[in-house]
Each structure stands twice: as structure tokens, then as C-alpha cells.
């Protein structure tokens, strides 16, 4: 028969469509922002945790665990010291070590870091769910002056297979400290990984040694420029030091023992870290900012909820007539209260549902762009429990807030009696 209280609430809202839609829109935007931050932060954490996998230990000169992680994996900052080649060889020769990949950092090309390493890097460096690096074009370096570039380097600088590339000494902008007399040739371009590998230029360790012939003092020795390439190739180019070593173990269970051993019993002081642990510690540092962002977006939801109050409270004046008609036809106080609380809850619920849908649309549009442009995968941003909880919480909060206009309307309708002077 006709219309329930919820039906009345709904029709009354539809009778004030513009105001109701604006309110729903405000809630939807705030909920979309909140869910967007929440989902993006989970995706970021996921991507972050996926930066390196399959490597049990990273070994470098003693500094801090986060420092070592930052320069060896994220190419951020600099190593304060290096470790010697014999120490690397000793690590690689250990019985419990399956493989050890040395890396050497310190030079750059147009802002992108150059990483000297061995061919085994492409075999053992894994990211995400133990995914290997794959080539979009070309192959791994073989000759002394071959270079393999990450997807983003190729994209941003417009490089192709065969493009020449000049490495800059240190991390400066280039110019005086260019190794222009030793140009490289690009032989391989990697597929996007969403990790710092995309922003890296990979060359052989020997190449790093070779371009620094004549730079032993830390500055350029002009006489060395004249040494012909053939002569350089004939040198012993085994590096004297490396920046860090990625280590894979034969048996993962020995990781703690091996780490302790490396940290204490080697001929030179070392720092061995477990990447997962270091990532977790680093995330702890970053999560403060991320929590602040989440808190801000929660406040935005609060603002959205207040807009429900505003819209209903301002509507009450023009609805005194409606209330007194309902009272006159037999609506009890509880009906009026239910009606207005239901209105608030309907606004909150619809706003939250549209917000959850909106953020999915935004992610659907953004995901291919982010993936193509930045190699960032928005994993785990699909609809989930967090959406349900958010919708539930927003609806409940709206319902509780609805008590205010409900009581205001009730008081007025009691004071108005049967008639309202218009």
C-alpha cells in the first residue's frame, strides 16, 4: 500500500533533487578521495615491497641498513665506502652462497644512475613475485662499451638500440666531467618493471674500470685521454672495489647465520642486510606521511558528512508544512524522526556507493596510463572489503548525524501544532 517511511524519505529527497544530488556528490568525492588514498597507499606498499625479491642478502660497507638499501636498490644517495674485490670473491666463494652479483655505482648519464655489474645480474635480479628482467629490445651487454638501459631511460631520452651514450663522472649534470672519450653503445632495452631498474643504465664492471682510467686521483688526468681504446682493452680491468653485492643463498634457512657471519667474521668490516627487513623499516619511516594523508582524507569525509547536515537542516524551514501534514495525518514523533534519519542515511549511503564506484572508474582510466608511463602497477585497487567498511561507516555516521535535524524537526512540529502560518 503506497509508501513506506523510507519511500517517503526517498520521495522527499527526490523532491529536492538538486540539493540532494549536490550533497551526494560531495559525499561521493570525499569517499572517492579517501578510498583512493587508502588503495593507492596499499598499492604503493605492494610495489615498494616488490622492488627486489629473490635476493636473500645485500652486502655493503658498514653504514645503516636503510642507507645501504637506498643506494643499492633505490639508487638514492651514495655509498660512504666500498668493499674490496677480494672480499667480494670471498663472499662468492662461500659454501652457503648460491650466487653473488657485484654492483658498482657512482656515475650517471643525464640524471640516470649507471650501474656496473656482471651478466649474472640479469639472471639473478628479481622483482615483484620473483619476476626476472626481460628485454623489450636487444640483449644484455657483452662488449666492454655496451650498455643496457631501463624502460624509462629509453622512453624519456628517446634512445634506441645503437644509440651512443656518454657517461658522466659522478652525479653531476655533465660537461667537464664527462667520460666523452669513452662513448657507450646501447645494446639492450629492458621492459618496464615499476622498480628503479627502469631508471638505470647497466654496463659491465670492467667498463666502469675502463672509463676511470686516468681518473685515479678523482679528477681527470688529461694525459690519459690519449690512451687508445685498444690499449685500454688490454689492461686488467678487474675492479678493485665494488659498491655492494646482491647475494642468493643455497638454503634460505641459513640467512640469519650467514648474515651474522658476514657482519662479524670477514677480513674487512661489512654490513649485510635482509632486503625484506630493510624495506619494512624504510616503510615505517614513510608511513608517517602516508598516515597523515589518510587522516586528511578522513577529515574530508567529515566535511562531506557535514554537508548532509547542512542540506537537511536548511531544508527543514521550507518543509514545516510537509511535517505538519504528516503529523496531522497520523505520523507519530517516531515517524518524523525516522523519516529525517532515513534521509540522512540514504544521502550518506548513496554518496559512499557512488564514491566507491567513482574511484574504480578513476583507477580504471588511470591504471593503463600509470602502467605505460611510469611502470607503476595499481595492484589490489579493485573493489574490496575496505569499500564495504567505508560505505557502512559513512552510512552509520550519516545516520547518527541525522538525529540532529530529526530532533529539530520534531521540536518544531510539536510547537507548530496543526497549522503553520505561511
Amino acid at each position: 500500500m503506497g509508501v513506506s517511511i523510507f519511500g517517503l524519505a526517498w520521495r522527499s529527497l527526490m523532491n529536492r533533487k538538486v540539493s540532494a544530488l549536490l550533497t551526494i556528490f560531495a559525499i561521493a568525492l570525499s569517499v572517492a578521495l579517501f578510498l583512493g588514498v587508502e588503495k593507492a597507499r596499499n598499492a604503493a606498499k605492494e610495489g615498494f615491497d616488490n622492488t627486489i625479491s629473490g635476493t636473500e642478502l645485500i652486502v655493503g660497507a658498514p653504514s645503516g641498513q636503510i642507507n645501504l638499501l637506498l643506494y643499492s636498490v633505490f639508487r638514492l644517495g651514495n655509498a660512504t665506502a666500498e668493499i674490496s674485490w677480494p672480499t667480494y670473491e670471498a663472499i662468492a666463494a662461500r659454501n652457503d652462497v648460491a650466487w653473488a652479483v657485484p654492483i658498482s655505482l657512482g656515475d650517471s648519464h643525464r640524471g640516470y644512475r649507471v650501474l656496473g655489474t656482471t651478466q649474472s645480474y640479469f639472471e639473478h635480479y628479481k622483482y615483484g613475485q620473483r619476476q626476472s628482467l626481460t628485454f623489450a629490445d636487444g640483449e644484455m651487454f657483452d662488449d666492454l662499451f655496451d650498455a643496457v638501459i631501463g624502460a624509462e631511460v629509453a622512453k624519456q631520452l628517446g634512445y634506441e638500440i645503437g644509440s651512443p651514450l656518454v657517461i658522466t663522472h659522478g652525479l653531476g649534470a655533465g660537461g667537464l666531467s664527462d667520460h666523452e672519450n669513452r662513448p657507450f653503445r646501447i645494446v639492450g632495452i629492458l621492459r618496464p618493471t615499476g622498480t628503479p631498474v627502469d631508471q638505470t643504465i647497466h654496463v659491465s664492471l670492467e667498463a666502469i674500470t675502463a672509463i676511470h682510467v686516468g681518473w685515479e686521483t678523482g679528477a681527470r688526468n688529461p694525459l690519459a685521454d690519449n690512451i687508445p681504446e685498444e690499449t685500454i682493452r688490454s689492461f686488467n680491468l678487474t675492479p678493485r672495489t665494488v659498491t655492494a653485492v646482491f647475494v642468493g643463498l643455497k638454503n634460505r634457512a641459513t640467512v640469519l647465520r650467514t648474515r651474522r657471519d658476514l657482519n662479524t667474521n670477514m677480513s674487512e668490516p661489512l654490513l649485510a642486510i635482509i632486503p625484506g627487513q630493510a624495506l619494512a623499516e624504510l616503510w615505517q619511516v614513510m608511513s608517517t606521511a602516508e598516515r597523515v594523508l589518510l587522516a586528511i582524507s578522513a577529515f574530508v569525509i567529515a566535511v562531506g558528512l557535514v554537508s548532509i547536515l547542512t542540506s537537511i537542516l536548511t531544508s527543514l524551514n521550507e518543509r514545516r508544512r510537509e511535517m505538519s501534514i504528516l503529523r496531522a495525518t497520523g505520523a507519530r514523533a517516531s515517524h518524523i524522526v525516522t523519516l529525517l534519519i532515513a534521509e540522512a542515511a540514504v544521502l550518506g549511503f548513496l554518496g559512499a556507493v557512488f564514491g566507491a564506484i567513482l574511484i574504480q572508474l578513476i583507477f580504471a582510466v588511470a591504471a593503463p596510463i600509470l602502467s605505460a608511463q611510469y611502470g607503476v602497477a595499481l595492484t589490489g585497487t579493485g573493489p574490496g572489503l575496505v569499500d564495504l567498511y567505508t560505505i557502512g561507516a559513512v552510512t552509520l555516521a550519516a545516520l547518527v548525524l541525522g538525529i540532529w535535524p530529526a530532533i529539530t524537526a520534531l521540536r518544531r512540529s510539536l510547537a507548530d501544532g496543526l497549522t503553520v502560518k505561511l
Partner: protein
Amino acid sequence: MTRPIVSLSDLSFAWPDQPPVLDVQAFELRAGERLFLRGPSGSGKSTLLGVIAGVLEAGGGEVHVLDKDLTKLSGGERDRVRADHLGVIFQMFNLVPYLSVVQNVVLPCRFSNRRLNEVNSAGGPEAEAKRLLARLGLKDDALISRKVTELSVGQQQRVAAARALIGNPALIIADEPTSALDADSRDRFIELLSDEAQKSGAALLFVSHDGALASLFDRAIDLAEINRATTAAEVA
């Protein structure tokens, strides 16, 4: 004599911090009776109706509506008496703008099980609503399906009358329902309302400032005669 539907004794009412609006020693309305209550605007008519309808709480005295003393009931209980036994028609703007004509008419059945049961035995709320609308001269389906805000004032008042009558309440209260109508529609409306009230056995309490209408009712009372507070207010 039939039993009284409304009976007031020593009723007083005042808005907070104001002189009394109502001071009625005795007033009685009997079942099936059609009573005209005359009073100029500001004489406390609407307040009196609010008290009888249980929306306003009397300051003192007794307000009997169908054997129940409203002054001894809680707000919720008074609401229930109104929902079950009263039909109300206002001067204008009687209808909920976002409901259809039929939805407006069946509204009391939503709030009262007694009235819902009553119409269910007569074929259901919507059938009963249409029957009442037809009896009040709104037969046209096209008319009924219009938005209520598109109806003429006279049509709106007849929809309000159908709503007041649905579910056979014992008392119809009409507060200046014809003051927005021209003379012809006014007489026609009173005639229809009066007939329908009589057929359903409801008492009709019709309030207006226009004394000329008195002849259309069983009995007429001047509010000033029974309300001792009015004179005081007018003097002041």
C-alpha cells in the same frame, strides 16, 4: 442522545510566556454531529483544533476524545488517537507535494493499523481512495494521475477531504477548508464533505470565520461564546 466524540471541560491553553489563548468551560461534539464553529482569525480556533487533535498539549482541564482523556495520555498515545480516529483538512496546501493523489489519500493508512484494517475490508487502500475520490467528484483517471501541485485549489481540497475520510475516522476536523474557494465551489465542497461524513458516521467539526456558512450545519457555535480567554485578549 448519541455518545460524545469530543468533550472539553475547563480547558485552558497558553503558549509559553503569553496570556492564555483558550479558556473553555464546556464544549461537546456528539457522534455523527455536524458542527459549525465560528470565530475570527486570531480567536484561538486553530489552537483549539490542535488541542483536540492531540498535537498541542492542554494546559489544564480535560480533553475527552472518544472516551480518552488526552491530558492523561503521553504524546505518542495522543498521536495514536489522532492517527486512528481523526481526519484533518487544512485551509490550503493540504497535500504532500512529492506524493501522487492516491498516495496522499492513503497516507493515514500508513500511520494507523485500525484505518488500514478498515480499508482492507473494503477492498484495499487504493481502491478505497479511488472510491472516495470518485464520490467527491474526482473520477477522472487523468486527473488523479496528475501531480498534486498541478491540481486546482478546489481539487486539492477534495483530495484532502478524501484523505480525512479514509478508514472511517470518528471525527473530521476542517480548519477553514473553504476560505480559498469561490462561493460555488465552497458550497459544493461543504455539501460533499458533509454528506460523506454523514455516510461514514463521522462527526464533523467545521471551523470558519465566515458565519454565512452556519446554515449548512446541524449546529453552530461562536467560539467567543465558549472561550473566556478571547475577550481578555481582545481587550488587551
